[in-house]
């Protein structure tokens, strides 16, 4: 009875904290501009099933892919056990499903145990890849401090969770074998049937009951802690990978987003009618009723699309983008992962200021922008090669943000590398990317 009340209390409190955290993320994503993303649902389902659920893109690098798969499958299948833990927790039952499911129950729990062992091994290898082998992509400057701690904390949580599972099941098996009341028979579990007696066989019944209860509570406490921690962690990808792959752009990677408002301006300037959707153009955007000078490109979360911010929150900082980036490989400051982290951190900063009442959404001005985090030097190092886009296992597009910020720099700030000015002038005045004295067809006479 006391255990049931305690369980309901803990579940309620962590549910409330998780709700707060997830609504914060939801609100921060809404800080972006509205953008309608729809169409081609079959391709979108394909992406969700193959890329998010099937982890297709992870398998470019098979070792981390297999290890990650162990943890992922263990996590998914453990949810079955979690349902039982909830039932037992609330009603004070013990292994509620066991009598109803019989041999199938034994099979499910055995599968969870085998996968938990695999996940345990994977976690140990992941921890050593980060902290002992020090794989290069985990050691970049943007990983200093919280991002590295965040990763280790999650891996540590994984180890605690698995420890809980085996204390719980192992203790249970010992108590079952001794015929202790309340611990009814559940069949032989793949691991704990031998691991339980090995670890706890020499202990008294009372001590083993304590271990079994400790394991049960440790498991559920870790799960609740994990749910509350998720919205503050890079580990949010376990949820957001799904919507993120659904909303991923389906056009060729080489396609850069059009700016219909500038298209309209230019056509008016050239004395041409606006393009209609029948011509393949988008419908003309509405005018600018405020009469203020419009801002082009993006310098803050408000001028990015909500989709860009969703992508920033979906990023788990694995750094495959940065490891593939030609600029980063050759020692330039640009890191596509950092671009995503900067957008997320700025959304957090802006969101916190609004939530605390210090700032209003409509007239937000804290004197800062994305340019305080992402410098022109980083933006100018990009070759638009799409290696980062190709590398991302959950279809995040850092290039889109880089290009929107370049647009802001050139169109709104009239800044950018001075070396580009001759190129701009040549295109405008001579119709060529270089100012040349000979005619365009001179190559025919050579």
């Amino acid at each position: 009875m006391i255990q049931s009340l305690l369980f309901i209390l803990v579940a309620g409190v962590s549910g409330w904290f998780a709700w707060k955290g997830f609504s914060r993320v939801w609100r921060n994503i809404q800080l972006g501009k509205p953008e309608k993303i729809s169409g081609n649902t079959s391709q979108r389902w394909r992406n969700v099933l193959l890329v998010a659920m099937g982890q297709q893109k992870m398998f470019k690098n098979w070792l981390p892919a297999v290890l990650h798969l162990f943890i992922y499958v263990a996590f998914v299948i453990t949810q079955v056990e979690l349902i039982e833990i909830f039932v037992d927790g609330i009603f004070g039952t013990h292994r509620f499903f066991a009598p109803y499911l019989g041999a199938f129950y034994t099979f499910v729990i055995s599968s969870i145990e085998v996968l938990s062992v695999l996940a345990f091994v994977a976690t140990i290898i992941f921890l050593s890849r980060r902290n002992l082998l020090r794989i290069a992509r985990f050691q970049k400057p943007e990983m200093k401090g919280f991002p590295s701690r965040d990763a280790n904390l999650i891996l540590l949580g994984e180890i605690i969770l698995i420890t809980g599972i085996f204390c719980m099941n192992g203790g249970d098996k010992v108590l079952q074998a001794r015929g202790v009341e309340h611990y009814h028979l559940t069949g032989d579990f793949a691991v704990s049937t031998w691991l339980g007696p090995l670890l706890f066989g020499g202990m008294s019944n009372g001590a083993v009951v304590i271990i079994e209860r400790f394991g049960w509570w440790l498991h559920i406490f870790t799960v609740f802690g994990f749910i509350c921690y998720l919205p503050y962690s890079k580990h949010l990808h376990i949820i957001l990978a799904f919507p993120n792959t659904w909303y991923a752009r389906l056009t060729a990677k080489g396609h850069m987003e059009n700016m219909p408002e500038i298209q309209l301006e230019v056509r008016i300037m050239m004395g041409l009618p606006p393009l209609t959707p029948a011509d393949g153009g988008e419908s003309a955007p509405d005018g600018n009723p405020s009469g203020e000078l419009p801002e082009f490109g993006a310098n803050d979360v408000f001028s990015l699309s909500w989709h860009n911010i969703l992508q920033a929150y979906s990023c788990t900082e694995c750094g495959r983008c940065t490891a593939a980036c030609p600029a980063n490989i050759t020692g330039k400051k640009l890191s596509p992962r950092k671009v995503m982290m900067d957008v997320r951190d700025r959304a957090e900063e802006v969101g916190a200021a609004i939530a605390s009442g210090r700032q209003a959404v409509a007239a937000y001005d804290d004197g800062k922008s994305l340019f305080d985090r992402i410098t022109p030097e980083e933006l100018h190092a990009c070759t638009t090669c799409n290696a980062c886009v190709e590398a991302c296992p959950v279809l995040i597009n850092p290039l889109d943000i880089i290009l929107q910020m370049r647009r802001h720099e050139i169109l709104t700030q009239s800044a950018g590398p001075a070396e580009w000015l001759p190129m701009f002038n040549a295109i405008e005045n001579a119709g060529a990317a270089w100012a040349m004295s000979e005619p365009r067809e001179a190559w025919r006479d050579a």
Partner: protein
Amino acid sequence: MAEMAAQGKSPEILFWVGCAGSFDARAQKVTRALCEILNHAEVEFAILGSEERCTGDPARRAGNEFLFQMTATTNIETLNMYGVKKIVTACPHCFNILKNEYPELGGHYEVVHHTQLINELIVNGNLKLKEGGDFKGQRITYHDSCYLGRANDVYEVPRALLESLDVDLVEMKRSRKNGLCCGAGGAQMWKEDEPGDKRISLERIEEALETNPTAVVANCPFCLTMLQDGLKAKEKNEQIPVYDLSEMILSRL
């Protein structure tokens, strides 16, 4: 194009030469090679000549959308005036922007890269390659340009051409989807590299040299420049040539 239009002819294909193909001495050779190949295959084609303008790719990638929209709209007006249906280009940047970004501005054409067109001509029997030739059995490595490769998923057609040349194709560690950029894209061609440890072109050519090739092959005028710069820095430019695929095909006609 203007001359043909005046004669009431509408050629089946427009060759979009591009700025590099028009003005860069190295790329001009590729332009002439492609013309010879098209003539050899008796493809009726035209160029826009002085009516062609930069597609706007470097301007757009640099962030200058106004300039891009101006130059692209002018080009589309010209192309639509001549009723152009199909375009071939030897530049993957022109290819990408004509194919993927001009439609939203009202320019709808069938756009092919020259490696695709050449492959099509060979498959259809319009181009017959002579036996033997300089490249048979040679160790050659192929550099995927970002704008043909990742941007448009064209990986196998250029490799099919290399196969028809009977070369011994050796892949670099990073190839196809994982290919490493030459360093020129995104308007980098028009500026110095940002501060760093080394130039991207050097990183790429070092990887190419690891395959111990007799020649490096590319499909993009900017890659040609960058890879050659890299070879110069390595003092290997005398021994190892950088070819465009069309030049290798031409040697076998």
